[in-house]
C-alpha cells in the first residue's frame, strides 16, 4: 500500500464477504426446495430466494469491483483518493440501498424482471450512488500524475456499466421489448463491460505478481478488450433468437456469440504466458492462484460452456432450462467471483501489513471452493441435459421431469457443501488479517 486512502478498499471487501455468505444461504434454500424440503415456502418462497440469491451475487461483485477500484486507481494515478469521507458515504449508502432491496423482496416489493428485480424507485438511488462512486474514481484518475491503460480500462468498464444500467429502467408495455432491452443490461454487462473490469484487475494483478513489463501487459489488454467488444456487442443476439424478434438475430447472434470465447481464451493464455515469462517471484502465492485460476475457469465456464449452447440449433432446445443454470454458475464463478477473490487476497496483506499468506488454510479454501463449484456445475449440467431430452424431445410434462431429475439436486447440495466450506475458510482467512492500518504503508513496501 502506497497511499492511506487505499484502506477504503478493505471495508468494501468486508461488505463483499458478508453479502457473499448470504447469497450462499439463499442458494441452499433453493437447493433444498428442489428436493422437496420447502419448509420455508410461506416466508421465503422460491422466487424470493432466487431474487435474493442473484441480486446479492451482482451486488457483492459490484462491491468487490468498487473496492478494487478504490485500491488500484490511487496507486495507478499516483495520488490519494480525492475524498475519502465521500467514499465511506458511498459505501454506507450502497449497503443501505442493498439491504432495503433485499428486505423488500421478502414483502413482494420488487419488479419481476430476471436479474433486475430492484424496484424503479430504488434504481434512482442506485444511480446516485454509482455517480458518486464514479465521480470519486474519475476525479482521482484525471488529477493524478499518470493515466495508465490499466486504470483507463478499469474505469471505462465501470463507467459503461453504469450507463448500461439505464436501458433497464425504461418501462415497456410489451414483454418482448422489455426483454430486448433487459439484455442490454444483463448481457452487455457480463459479456461486455464487466470483462473490461476483469481485464483491468487481471492486468494490474499480473503486473504486480509477475513483474512483467507494463507495456507488454497493457498491449495485450487492449487486444483482449478489443476481442470482447468485437464479439460481445453483436453477440447479444444469442438472447434474441426465440423471444419474438426478427430472425436476423439467429445469424448475427450465432456468428458473433460463437466468437466470444476468444476473448476468454486470450485472457487465459495471457495470464499463463505472463506468469511463465515473469521473473519476479512474488511471495503472495495464493493471490497468484486465484488470479491464474480466474483466467482459466472463466474460459471454461463462460467460453466453453457458453459456446455449448450458443448456436441457435442447440439453443432452441436448451433455452430456459437447467443447462443455462449450469453455465450461469461456472461463468459467474470463474470470471467475476474468482477475480474479486483474487484482488482481495492480494490487497489484504498490503492494507493490514500482515503477511499471513501461504498457509495451508488459504490453499485448502481455494481447492474446496473450486472443486465444489465444479461438482455443482456437473450436477446442474446432468440435470439440465436430462431435462432437455425428457421435456423438449420426449414431450414429458414439466413436473414429471422435475421429479425424475431431483436426485441430481442431492448431488448439487453435497457439492455446494464442499463449496461453502471453501468459502467459510476463505472468510476465516480474511478475518485473520484484522483491520487495515496506516502502519501498513511502511510494512507493505517490501511486498507490493
Amino acid at each position: 500500500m502506497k497511499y492511506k486512502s487505499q484502506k477504503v478498499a478493505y471495508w468494501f471487501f468486508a461488505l463483499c464477504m458478508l453479502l457473499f455468505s448470504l447469497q450462499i444461504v439463499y442458494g441452499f434454500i433453493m437447493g433444498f426446495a428442489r428436493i422437496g424440503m420447502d419448509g420455508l415456502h410461506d416466508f421465503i418462497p422460491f422466487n424470493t430466494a432466487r431474487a435474493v440469491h442473484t441480486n446479492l451475487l451482482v451486488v457483492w461483485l459490484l462491491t468487490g469491483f468498487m473496492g478494487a477500484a478504490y485500491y488500484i486507481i490511487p496507486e495507478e494515478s499516483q495520488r490519494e483518493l480525492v475524498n475519502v469521507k465521500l467514499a465511506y458515504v458511498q459505501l454506507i449508502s450502497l449497503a443501505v440501498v442493498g439491504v432495503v432491496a433485499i428486505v423488500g423482496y421478502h414483502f413482494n416489493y420488487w419488479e419481476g424482471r430476471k436479474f433486475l428485480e430492484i424496484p424503479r424507485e430504488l434504481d434512482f438511488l442506485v444511480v446516485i450512488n454509482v455517480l458518486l462512486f464514479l465521480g470519486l474514481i474519475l476525479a482521482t484518475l484525471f488529477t493524478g500524475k499518470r493515466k495508465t491503460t490499466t486504470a483507463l480500462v478499469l474505469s471505462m468498464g465501470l463507467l459503461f456499466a453504469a450507463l448500461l444500467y439505464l436501458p433497464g429502467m425504461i418501462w415497456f408495455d410489451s414483454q418482448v421489448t422489455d426483454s430486448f432491452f433487459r439484455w442490454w443490461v444483463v448481457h452487455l454487462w457480463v459479456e461486455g463491460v464487466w470483462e473490461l473490469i476483469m481485464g483491468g484487475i487481471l492486468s494490474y494483478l499480473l503486473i504486480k505478481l509477475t513483474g512483467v513489463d507494463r507495456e507488454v501487459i497493457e498491449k495485450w489488454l487492449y487486444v483482449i478488450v478489443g476481442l470482447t467488444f468485437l464479439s460481445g456487442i453483436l453477440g447479444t443476439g444469442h438472447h434474441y433468437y426465440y423471444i419474438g424478434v426478427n430472425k436476423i438475430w439467429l445469424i448475427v447472434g450465432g456468428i458473433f456469440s460463437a466468437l466470444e470465447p476468444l476473448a476468454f481464451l486470450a485472457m487465459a493464455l495471457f495470464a499463463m504466458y505472463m506468469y511463465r515469462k515473469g521473473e519476479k517471484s512474488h511471495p503472495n502465492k495464493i493471490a497468484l492462484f486465484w488470479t491464474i485460476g480466474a483466467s482459466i475457469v472463466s474460459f471454461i465456464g463462460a467460453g466453453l460452456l457458453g459456446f455449448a449452447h450458443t448456436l441457435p440449433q442447440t439453443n432452441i432446445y436448451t433455452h430456459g432450462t437447467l443447462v443455462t443454470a449450469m453455465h450461469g454458475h461456472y461463468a459467474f464463478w470463474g470470471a467475476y467471483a474468482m477475480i474479486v477473490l483474487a484482488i482481495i487476497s492480494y490487497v489484504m496483506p498490503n492494507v493490514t501489513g500482515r503477511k499471513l499468506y501461504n498457509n495451508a488454510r488459504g490453499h485448502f479454501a481455494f481447492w474446496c471452493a473450486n472443486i465444489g463449484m465444479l461438482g455443482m456445475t456437473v450436477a446442474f449440467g446432468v440435470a439440465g441435459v436430462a431435462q432437455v431430452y425428457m421435456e423438449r424431445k420426449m414431450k414429458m410434462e414439466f413436473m414429471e421431469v422435475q421429479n425424475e431429475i431431483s436426485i441430481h439436486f442431492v448431488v448439487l447440495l453435497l457439492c455446494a457443501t464442499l463449496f461453502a466450506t471453501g468459502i467459510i475458510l476463505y472468510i476465516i482467512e480474511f478475518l485473520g488479517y484484522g483491520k487495515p492500518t496506516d502502519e501498513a504503508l511502511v510494512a507493505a513496501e517490501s511486498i507490493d
Partner: protein
Amino acid sequence: MLSKSQARTFFLGGTVVTFLAFIGLTVYSLQPNNDQTNHDKIDAKVVRGKELWESNNCMGCHTILGEGGYYAPELTKVIDRRGENYVKAVLQSPVPWAPRGRKMVVYKMNDKDTEALIAYLKWIGNINLNGFDQVVSPLAKDKIKN
C-alpha cells in the same frame, strides 16, 4: 510485432463498428413491419397483466419466452396446453397449488386481475418465436398425440 497503439486502434475500431451495426440491427428489428408479436393487440388488459406478472415476480419461478426461473413450468404456451379455466383456478386457489408436490405461492387473485393475466398469457401465446414455440414445453396438440 503488434504495437500498443495498433492494439488500441483494433480495440476502438472494432468497438465503434460493431456498436453501430448493433444499433442499426436494433432499429431494424423494432420496425413495425418486422413485428412478430401482434403489438397492436396489446390493450389495457394485457398491460395490466404484465404489471401483475412483474409485481408478483412470477418470473422468479416460471420461464416465459424461455426467460425466468427453472422451478416451475414454462408458461409461454400455457393457455394452449391447459385452457383458461385451469389457469384461473391456479391463480384464485386459496391454498398453495401443488398438483405434484411442488408448491406455488397463494395469490387468491380477484376476477378482474385474473382476466388481465389471462389476456397477457394469451397475447404471449400468439407470438411468433422463430420455431421455439414448437419445442417449448408440450403443446396441446402433442399432448393429444400421447
